[in-house]
């Protein structure tokens, strides 16, 4: 019997993708359910803003967890879920941004521009959102081919900056209790730290031959 986790069949991967698609929509479903059932609290717009922001961050961190998970577990097929995770992060970021522009500011563009320029936490949040757009646009196979693997990869390293900006955006927003942003920051630090460790390990064999006696 083949090991499903190490080497799933094409069918099993399709099932995994379909499951992930449904799971990714659960937060939105919950938000709609709360909205219909008067569960958004006294300040619904603030609730929706925080909710969509939170799930954007979760989406970004989950996307960033694929590579470390894959390397540690050897489950290489996980990489095939990464695009959908990234697109879900973008999806919730779009909802978050729309909530701000539409529900919070009601298209008062003068106010929005002022906010983006004057409020550091909005500046970094806006920047993170803008940087996500090219990644979403180049997420298709066709775009990957057109750009070429190296170029594509270089572009998509922007995700590191985006995740950092996202966490900073949250950190600068809270009034005093930084417990929550701190948790996101720690998870992000671990996810980025692991990458540095992997990088160092890969370099070792390259360096090693130098010390071999000729």
């Amino acid at each position, binding site marked *: 019997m083949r090991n499903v986790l190490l080497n799933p069949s094409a069918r099993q991967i399709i099932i995994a993708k379909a499951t992930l698609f449904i799971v990714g929509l659960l937060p939105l479903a919950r938000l709609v359910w709360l909205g219909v059932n008067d569960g958004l*609290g*006294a*300040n619904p*717009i*603030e609730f929706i803003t925080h909710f969509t922001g939170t799930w954007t961050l979760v989406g970004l961190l989950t996307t960033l967890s694929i590579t470390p998970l894959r390397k540690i577990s050897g489950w290489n097929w996980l990489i095939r879920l990464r695009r959908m995770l990234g697109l879900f992060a973008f999806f919730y970021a779009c909802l978050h941004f729309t909530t701000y522009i539409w*529900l*919070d*500011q*009601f298209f008062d563009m003068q*106010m929005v521009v*002022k*906010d983006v320029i*004057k*409020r*550091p*936490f909005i500046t970094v949040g806006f920047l993170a959102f803008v940087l996500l757009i090219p990644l979403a646009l180049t997420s298709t196979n066709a775009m990957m081919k057109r750009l070429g693997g190296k170029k594509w990869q270089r572009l998509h390293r922007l995700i590191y900056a985006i995740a950092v900006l996202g966490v900073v955006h949250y950190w*600068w*927003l809270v*009034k*005093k*209790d930084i*417990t929550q942003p701190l948790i996101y920051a720690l998870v992000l630090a671990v996810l980025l730290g692991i990458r540095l460790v992997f990088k160092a390990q890969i370099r070792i064999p390259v360096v090693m031959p130098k010390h071999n006696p000729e």
Partner: protein
Amino acid sequence: MLIKKADVLKAADVTPYEIYLQRRDFLRAGSALAVSALLPGVAEATTRLSGIVSSPYSTSEEKTPYKDVTTYNNYYEFGTDKSDPAENAQGLRTRPWTISVEGAVKRPKVWDIDALLKAFPIEERIYRLRCVEGWSMVIPWEGFALANLIRQVEPTGSARYVEFTTLHDPAQMPGQRSSVLNWPYTEGLRLDEAMHPLTILAVGLYGQTLPNQNGAPVRLVVPWKYGFKSAKSIVRIRFVEQQPKTAWGRAAPSEYGFYSNVNPQVDHPRWSQARERRIGEFFKRKTEMFNGYGEQVAQLYQGMDLRKNF
């Protein structure tokens, strides 16, 4: 044939217009209480206040529903989420409770809360409340002018400020087990601000004694200042010569000044104060100078640079 004469109504039979106007509030408050009674774990320990007189200082704006006033609270002693206080404050014991009025006064006094509740006529004050975070409510408080209490203790010449201290009891206030603020919570006013007729000690809202999450059994309400100036669950009122340190001032001195008057022209360093969202409304509204109480309080700050004294 018997012809019945219609009953003649006496003047005393007619419901006064103000009371007639309050019929919806009565139903609303009643249904809110009925709903909360059905919620497990959220025991409403409030009781009805009687003999409330209305006040010319009240606004006629639409009141924020009881449910929102009592479930969307900033009260860090019970947690930093807006929903935390309603959940975590139910265990707060508000009897016995004393408030020590002390410091630079001729007649210091330790008040028992029940005596304090009977000491002065209780007025209804429907005030706007503007939170520094950019949202606002309209709340029907019950209370009395702080000036009444201040006159009784006779401040001495060296009393220039008044310091308010909230209960410090981590056993009852789970939020105090974390050092998110420097406990106990303290706030302060200049003596003339404290004496201003708009400044009240509130003991109730919507005709009931204060729910714990709103600062039971007694709290300050200063309607022209950001909400955090209005200290909750007060145990000490002290008259001092030097400007007292405030909880938020200690936590972030560049963000929360001593005065903290509502001022749409002076932004919080991290967000704008030009507009606010009234709870229950979709569109943001413009924030008013001194939260709309400028006519009454602007003279307190004549000649002061409010950008510096934020």
